[in-house]
């Protein structure tokens, strides 16, 4: 049974190394062709920025969710779970509605510069953050449950000054959580298709180019190469971060 899940990937490898009607394999052309390479670069850069931003922004939120004792904690957690339940295409729709040419946010804030950001890299980043911040927060929260106040107290009684607390206790306890949140966020951003397809008009992104390789150019080896790259990157990042996707 497990084989059934791996076999398609093996096929993908074969296809990515095949030449089809071209003179080079799909994989070679992915890295040689400047347009495809740009798509890969954009995807990587966007995922990296979104993942880093999500992790940085969500650390305080996750800490307070995991360890705080405040009214409305369950509600906040529920609110954070909402974006995760949404289909990418729904989020894409929301992004256009909020940040598009007739978007609600520019209208609300009476600013011109936000108008139409939905179609740019900035809008794409903001939209990704809309569901990656909750994802990172909830992922991190689960892992942060191990950061007990008790350990910080114990360290203090052993003479640790505030800076030592942070570096010798807090950081080692948080690191796995941060890594997990980064991995999950990066992989999700990298593969995100619905939002990318709807929004990314002005510049190429790998999942969108992959889609276009079906509908447009019908270049199977290049498509396979892109699919393989996306798959391996996501698997690798999740593997390294010690976190499996859900």
């Amino acid at each position, binding site marked *: 049974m497990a084989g059934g899940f791996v076999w398609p990937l093996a096929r993908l490898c074969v296809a990515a190394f095949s030449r089809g009607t071209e003179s080079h394999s799909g994989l070679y052309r992915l890295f040689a062709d400047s347009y495809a390479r740009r798509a890969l670069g954009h995807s990587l850069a966007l995922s990296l920025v979104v993942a880093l931003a999500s992790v940085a922004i969500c650390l305080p939120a996750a800490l307070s969710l995991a360890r705080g004792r405040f009214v409305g904690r369950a509600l906040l957690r529920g609110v954070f779970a909402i974006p995760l339940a949404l289909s990418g295409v729904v989020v894409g729709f929301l992004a256009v509605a909020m940040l598009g040419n007739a978007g609600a946010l520019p209208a609300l804030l009476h600013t011109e510069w936000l108008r139409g950001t939905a179609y740019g890299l900035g809008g794409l980043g903001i939209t990704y953050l809309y569901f990656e911040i909750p994802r990172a927060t909830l992922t991190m929260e689960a892992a942060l449950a191990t950061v*007990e106040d*008790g*350990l910080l*107290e*114990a*360290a*203090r*009684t*052993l*003479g*640790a*000054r505030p800076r*030592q607390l942070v570096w*010798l*206790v807090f950081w*080692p*306890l948080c690191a796995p959580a941060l890594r997990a949140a980064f991995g999950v966020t990066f992989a999700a951003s990298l593969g995100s298709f619905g939002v990318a397809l709807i929004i990314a008009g002005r510049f190429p992104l790998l999942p969108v180019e992959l889609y276009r390789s079906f509908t447009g150019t019908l270049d199977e080896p290049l498509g396979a190469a892109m699919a393989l790259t996306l798959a391996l990157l996501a698997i690798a990042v999740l593997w390294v971060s010690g976190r499996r996707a859900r």
Partner: protein
Amino acid sequence: MRIDFEHLTVEVSGHRALDDISGAFASGGVTAVIGPSGAGKSTLLRVLAGLIAPDAGRVRFDGADVTSLRPEERRLGVVFQDLRLFDFLSARDNVAFAPRVARVPASLQLERVDEALRLVRAGAFADRPARVLSGGERQRIAIARALAARPRALLLDEPFASLDAELRRSIREELREVVRALGVTAVVITHDRDDAFALASHFVVLSAGRIEQVGASNELYLHPATEYVATLLGEANLVAIDAREGDRVRVSGLVRSATGNGRRVLIRPEQLRVAGAATVTPTDGWAARVTDLRCSGAGWRVQLDAGSLGPLIAYVATPPAGENVWLVPPEEVHTV
């Protein structure tokens, strides 16, 4: 180091966890703070350690006011009930934590860590990650970690709560030896009288945030101020007094000199002599019937029915021969 606390009051959500209590822990002595859960034992420890600021009152170490000192400035060794080992470090690095943050030179660090590990006999598993250690090993490392800080005093909060009976006994004895060998002031928080008697020579009995009684362990055992302390510290036969004349009391036909001003006589089970029917004359003892006799693992535990005196318990070295016996209370009794 001597620890004094004066008029400590701590309120936790409107409830007084500690209610204006004062006292001292003698330098070099081992004191047990005993009481049921909710008595304020852990709150007291947390105030001493600086983890809670008291709402009122002061804490002094060797006379110096440390009330406003932060935990990291107090130089205490605290062993927490849940141990609180750093699971991301090895056992040895847990022990090395205090010397490391104190920036002790590396060679001296090594020496202090090795010494602490040796004291708790933890050398064999020192290089394993803390998270893989067994319950007893974790307990030892927690103690070693506190010792390696070269603390001015040790505070132990229910230190054996997570151990089973057998391991508890052996680690308790080891800790006793270590603390005596080092001569360090130690305060043990516990609700278990066996732990208290095994480790400490002085007791502070807490109840509902107030001090019930303070004193040497044997003094509290034999001369408790209240019935609560009497039963907290061991099995207690409590028998109503018929009459009192000065410092003499009459109980069911027998006259004894008595301490305390209570209305009931306290006779500890091992104080009650159980004699065969032939050996005692009626004026020397109470007639009783053995209702249950069992080997206790430290002699015999005899359950007796002494008529109007009610059911009594006696511990004896050899079991009584017959069912009918005489019970002889000690010459001097304590009343509560």
